[in-house]
């Protein structure tokens, strides 16, 4: 049982402070220099209902929610009963002894009773219950009290009059644990002595929104939808501070058309939604593609189909992003794979949109969106923003908005530019932008628009953060994937590698255009490629299978789909087991051959 890698779960009725305890505790841990990664479930009910808050805390980067629960924190009997079955043998139970009666001796669990209610009542401050528990947790798991106090000040400082009482509650819990839990617990945390490294703590949606701001986004138009809403809420507060604006549109169709209009008028513009909203935006996606208007569309995927399970995760919208649109409507598709990556991929997304004058879909998901992760400081100095190429309008009246060029990209004029008049035209058009239906022109324009994909594919090889590749170069077994399953894959691989298996992995961050060069190089010499995905059909696996079928079949490389469609993210063990299974299969085959 490793010190400094701990999965802690708090479960109970929503509204009981489960999430507060969790969110504050992980921030104290992060503030003390540890790495954190949270996972939570949402109740079906609006108020109340059962929630689970889970956090993995370690001194090494945390890449997934883990496989086992080491610690259960229970505030009431129901919270204990519901989760105790998942606590690993020998795990710890920290509980409010006023309310909870744990089963003694069960599975060798170690019991840590804290009379939370009593302690809170003793200072006549029942609202301090959560902080009493946090204080006990801080002490028991070995986090520094001063960091905890600072974090409480930061998070709860705005309630000035309550601050002394809040701090007192924290200390009560801390002291209680100090007095009563004198044995060092089997699992505990040891913050790095040098203190907190520089770094950031935030959710996936926050990172996305920050990435948008960093990429120069100034107009956001959107319609609320779980789990994308807080991107809008974040930007509603921040965009005005950088001279931008958020419009809460009447629906998703309005939202995407507003963003397209804003982009036409010269602003970097975006929208964010989830699958049902993206479904409604398909007509306008085609419009952006046809009129060659840059625009970024975030899809925070959730489990479907249809309204489905708004608070559960999925990677089921890949086909929708890649293929939806009437006739040939080129677009780009980008998929961030971690909280940190959300930031960088938004920069890629805006750069792709602006440079190639195309709609770009960014696929995040419900597990990534609300997850709190520590990440290294963003390398702002390394961000390079590409502007859309503006027309040189020295010679007026000859401006051709849709000039046919070798790259497919035509210099753009935006309203306000002298002599750049033209109509952004959703009908097929000639180079000037006037409607034109001749077979020749249609063919030429279809090819021009499509050409931008190939241009981008080539130019992208020089961009940062286009693929992530790691593992054993010479491994027979490889893993490919996309989006938020990267973390679990990294962990599963680390475990397998530690046990002597050789594995390599590649995650493209840009899925359209596919970085063929890197992928072809990567799959060469493999025997099997495992593709874990949170959807039923194996959408990405099918795409890889098709795109590289020649190499795969010629070289006898097997594509092994690992599909999960339960509304939940991968656990590392699921991927680890697949690695082992495939490895055994390969050995058996090798023997037979």
């Amino acid at each position: 049982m490793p010190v400094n890698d701990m999965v802690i779960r708090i479960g109970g009725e929503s509204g009981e402070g489960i999430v507060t305890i969790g969110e504050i505790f992980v921030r104290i841990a992060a503030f003390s220099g540890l790495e954190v990664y949270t996972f939570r479930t949402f109740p079906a009910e609006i108020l109340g209902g059962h929630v689970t808050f889970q956090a993995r805390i370690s001194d090494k980067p945390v890449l997934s929610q883990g496989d086992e629960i080491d610690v259960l924190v229970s505030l009431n009997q129901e919270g204990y009963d519901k989760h105790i079955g998942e606590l690993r043998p020998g795990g710890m139970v920290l509980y409010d002894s006023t309310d909870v009666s744990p089963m003694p001796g069960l599975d060798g669990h170690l019991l840590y009773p804290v009379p939370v209610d009593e302690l809170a009542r003793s200072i006549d401050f029942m609202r301090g219950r959560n902080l009493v528990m946090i204080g006990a947790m801080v002490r028991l798991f070995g986090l520094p009290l001063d960091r905890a106090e600072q974090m409480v000040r930061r998070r709860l400082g705005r309630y000035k009059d309550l601050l002394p009482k809040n701090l007192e509650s924290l200390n009560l819990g801390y002291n209680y644990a100090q007095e009563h839990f004198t044995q060092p617990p089997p699992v505990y945390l040891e913050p790095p002595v040098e203190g907190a490294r520089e770094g950031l703590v935030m959710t996936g949606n926050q990172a996305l929104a920050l990435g948008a701001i960093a990429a120069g986004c100034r107009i956001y138009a959107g319609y609320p939808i779980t789990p994308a809403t807080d991107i809008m809420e974040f930007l509603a507060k921040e965009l005005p501070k950088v001279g931008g604006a958020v419009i809460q549109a009447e629906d998703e169709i309005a939202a995407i058309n507003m963003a397209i209009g804003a982009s036409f008028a010269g602003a970097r513009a975006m929208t964010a939604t989830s699958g049902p909203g993206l479904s409604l935006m398909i007509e306008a996606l085609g419009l952006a593609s046809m009129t060659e208007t840059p625009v970024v569309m975030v899809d925070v995927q959730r489990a479907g189909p249809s309204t489905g399970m708004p608070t559960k995760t999925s990677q089921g919208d890949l086909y929708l992003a890649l293929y939806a649109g009437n006739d040939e409507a080129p677009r780009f598709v980008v998929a961030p794979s971690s909280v940190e990556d959300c930031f960088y991929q938004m920069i890629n997304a805006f750069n792709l949109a602006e440079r190639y004058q195309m709609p770009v879909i960014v696929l995040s998901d419900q597990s990534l969106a609300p997850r709190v992760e520590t990440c290294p400081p963003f390398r702002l100095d390394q961000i390079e923003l590409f502007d859309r190429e503006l027309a040189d309008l020295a010679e007026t009246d000859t401006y051709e908005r849709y000039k046919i060029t070798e790259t497919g990209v035509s210099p753009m004029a935006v309203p306000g530019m002298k002599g750049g008049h033209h109509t952004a035209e959703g009908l097929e058009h000639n180079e000037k932008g006037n409607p034109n239906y001749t077979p020749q022109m249609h063919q030429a324009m279809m090819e021009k628009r499509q050409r931008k994909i190939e241009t981008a594919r080539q130019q992208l090889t020089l961009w940062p953060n286009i693929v992530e590749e790691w593992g054993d170069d010479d491994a027979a077994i490889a893993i490919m994937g996309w989006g938020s399953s990267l973390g679990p894959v990294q962990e599963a691989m680390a475990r397998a590698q530690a046990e002597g298996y050789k594995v390599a992995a590649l995650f493209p961050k840009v899925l359209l255009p596919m970085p063929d060069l890197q992928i072809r190089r990567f799959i060469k010499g493999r025997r099997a490629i495992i593709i874990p995905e949170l959807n039923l059909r194996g959408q990405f696996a099918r795409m890889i299978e098709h795109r590289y079928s020649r190499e795969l079949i010629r070289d006898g490389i097997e594509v092994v789909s690992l599909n999960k469609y339960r509304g939940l993210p991968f656990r590392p063990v699921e991927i680890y087991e697949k690695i082992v299974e495939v490895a055994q299969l390969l050995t058996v085959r090798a023997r037979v051959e």
Partner: protein
Amino acid sequence: MITLAEPIKVKDWKSDVKPIWCPGCGDYGVLNSLLKALSDLKLDPDHVAIASGIGCSGRFPAFVNAYGFHGVHGRALPLATGIKTANPELTVFAVGGDGDAFSIGGGHLPHAARRNVDVTYVVMDNEIYGLTKGQPSPTSPIGMERKASPYGTYDAPLNPIAMVLSYGASFVARGFSSQPRELTELIKRGVQHQGFSFIQVMSPCVTFFDTYAYFKEITAPMPESHDPSDRMAAMQLALERTQYLGVFYEDNRPPHHVHMEELQEKAGNHLTLEKLLERFQR
């Protein structure tokens, strides 16, 4: 509103794309009135943008020497909202037909009105779907027999002026394509109005529903006594059978982009990314 010292002549506002409209279509009159208004207002073509949806009337932007966006069916208002919000210096128009505005695009109208987006929305109402060759529209009269309504329509037509008044639009007017001088003045007032200006223009479709005679019969000038600040009086006039021509209603609350500007000021328009990230430092 960015203006020039010298007006651009009407003929120079006209692009060299020839309208595809049928001879006699009301939309020619609307186009000419709009061009005249642009010229009269001394607008700068570099700072004019016209958004439209799909329909005969939706072809408008291509015929004007200015920036234009010919979007998809029914989405002229969201496009125009985006354009105006991104660059409030522009004078922004939205144009389209009755199907575009009241059928597929009908969900956007209440919101453009309540947001008070500073856009002049010219709806060419011919009480029919022109471009798709003559299906009934939401303003078609009852009993109209067309291929799509072989036994006659039976749905009650919508009353655009009453609707838009009920949305709280800040400028509501009606014109007629056959009265170009009056229409030009209405469009000018619409542009000068700071906020959402809705102008329903009766604009006959000679090919699929020739309403010239009917419109002439049913329209009448706005009663001189009408006070355009009186919303109930406007509503009363809107519900009459006679289709009055002129300004039904006008008020002067601040438009959407002014709210945005105020809000940027309130928020303090000077955040840096570095500063923002501090909040997330561990």
